[in-house]
């Protein structure tokens, strides 16, 4: 199911092959709008441009909050093409280093400050999604050339790919500014993890399956959770479920899970 959804995200990202030009839709993930086949707008690229122009971004804010409310970081787990690439290279599901995971907020703030200070889209010049979706395609289309910016793009892409291979979802955990924005909505998004504390035995199977390196039985509403649902499949007791409903008091929040044996 998730693979189909991720495939749909990739398809929507590359819908330009159908001949449709750029639409007004802001993409709910990290996806370079310079990509020759893109029909949607990169939220981070647009954000930087709006900072440069000094526009109060009403349209951007409305769209991003809507995305945040619906899925939160669920877009990272179910839709984002760059997240899908992270998934494909997820070989090593190491435990997340929590303090490092705040670097994505530093990247987000740095992106905004740099756009304002240099009046330029500085993040785009380093963005690994742009490396794959703009630099390389335009090299083959004869627009780009192997020059210093191209080499810088390839270096950042190479480093991020190495990071992805060594640590699952490396980009999403530590660096993605779009993930940083969507993570703010994790505690209110309609798509969320629900923990049945009476069923959970704290066996750690969900933690072993989590590509973000979380312990879902403790961190089910963590800002790093991408709601991919890997933990729900891994849980033999069905203690964790993905649900789609407002996160209202008394609806889904259990107490701290009690240790139970599997056979009870």
């Amino acid at each position, binding site marked *: 199911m998730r693979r189909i959804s991720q495939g749909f995200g990739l398809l929507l990202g590359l819908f330009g092959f159908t*001949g*449709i*030009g*750029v639409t*007004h839709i*802001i993409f709910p993930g990290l996806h*370079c*709008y*310079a990509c*020759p*086949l*893109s029909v*949607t*707008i*990169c939220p981070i*690229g*647009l954000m930087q*441009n709006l900072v*440069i*122009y*000094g*526009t*109060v*971004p*009403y*349209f*951007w*804010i*409305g*769209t991003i909050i*809507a995305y*945040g*409310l619906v899925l939160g970081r669920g877009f990272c787990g179910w839709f984002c093409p760059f997240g899908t690439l992270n998934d494909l290279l997820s070989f090593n599901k190491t435990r997340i280093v929590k303090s490092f995971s705040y670097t994505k907020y530093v990247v987000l703030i740095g992106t905004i400050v740099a756009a*304002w*200070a240099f009046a*330029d*889209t500085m993040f*785009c*010049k*380093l963005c690994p999604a*742009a490396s794959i979706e703009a*630099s390389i395609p335009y090299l083959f289309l004869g*627009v*780009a*050339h192997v*020059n*210093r*910016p*191209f080499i810088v*793009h390839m270096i950042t892409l190479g480093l991020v790919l190495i990071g992805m291979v060594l640590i699952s979802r490396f980009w999403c955990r530590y660096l993605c500014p779009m993930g940083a924005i969507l993570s*703010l*909505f994790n*505690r*209110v998004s309609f798509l969320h993890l629900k923990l049945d504390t009476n069923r959970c035995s704290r066996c750690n199977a969900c933690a072993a399956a989590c590509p973000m390196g979380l312990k879902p039985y403790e961190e089910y509403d963590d800002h790093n959770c991408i709601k991919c649902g890997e933990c729900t499949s891994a849980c033999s007791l069905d203690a964790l479920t993905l649900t789609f409903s*407002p*996160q*209202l*008091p*008394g609806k889904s*929040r259990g107490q701290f899970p009690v240790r139970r044996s599997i056979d009870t």
Partner: protein
Amino acid sequence: MIHRHTRALLLAATLAVALFGYSAIGQESILSYTLSPEKAEIAPGGRAALQLSIENKSLHPADDIAVSLIDADGFTIEPAEGDIKVIAPFGKDTLYLNLIASSNVALGTHDLKLQVIYTYCIEVSCFQIVDEVSVPVLVSAASVGPTTVKRVRSLPSWVIPMVAGILLITAILLWRSAGMRIPLYVVLFLFVVGGLAYGVILGQHEQAQGIAAVLCTSCVGIEESQHEEPVLSEGALSALNNLSVDLELIVYYAPWCHTCPYAEAMVEQMAQHSDHIKYRFVNVDENRDMAAANGIIHNQRTIVPAIQRVDSGDVIFGIDHLEERLLDLLGVEK
């Protein structure tokens, strides 16, 4: 049947309306000017930043726009002659000037004049038009000292409330109190509806689409931004001397593209060395249809800077090895 007096009256009224309309339209200036700040404040021996926004309100481009300060004892501007090569029909451009007062300038209000001279062509008929822009200046000893401000990016006024709002929402979102959930959902829902509706009313969805539909080669790091004037090589100059046919080039640019001025300057320089080269600049933000019609589109994306040779329709994109590629486009060998 209309009485002949009535008919004469109607004819006279029609003529009057036509003359009034003609005079009203005729008096409408081709270029309109907005000066910021409206009244500059300056100290003796000091400097003040001026921003002259020029809007072309006509159907034809305004060329070679030169701005200079006239009849202003004790004042000078930098650059001495501000210069804009062309403003496309219904286009806008901005000149950033520094007004400099000498140390012995009298205190009080001075009414300075900026003279704007430009060429306006309708088909083959060209006119040189001279406009004057009033620059009221208050010279006071208390004015801020001699600082040069050029293209300074001051903190926009909306930043502080914006940051406060973001911090507030972030605090609410991270707040674990479950009791706040329903009011929070209401606030967020209002933000979604209000943001989208007001954004669409302001045309921000069109702006967003425009940003995504034009690819500036330096913006996503396909090429390096160039901030220095290009210098033509000796080889290029001699190659240009061999050019024997008249050519027209169109430079497609976007005002926010960091690489475009380099491409524009190189074409300008080549045109200065060869009378056979004519050129014009086209802002793709405002002339997307023209860009589309002329093939400045690569896989649905308008790419800037792009230089097109009009007779052949050939286009080159970006500025990497531009001199070499431009000479190739012109059909001359280095």
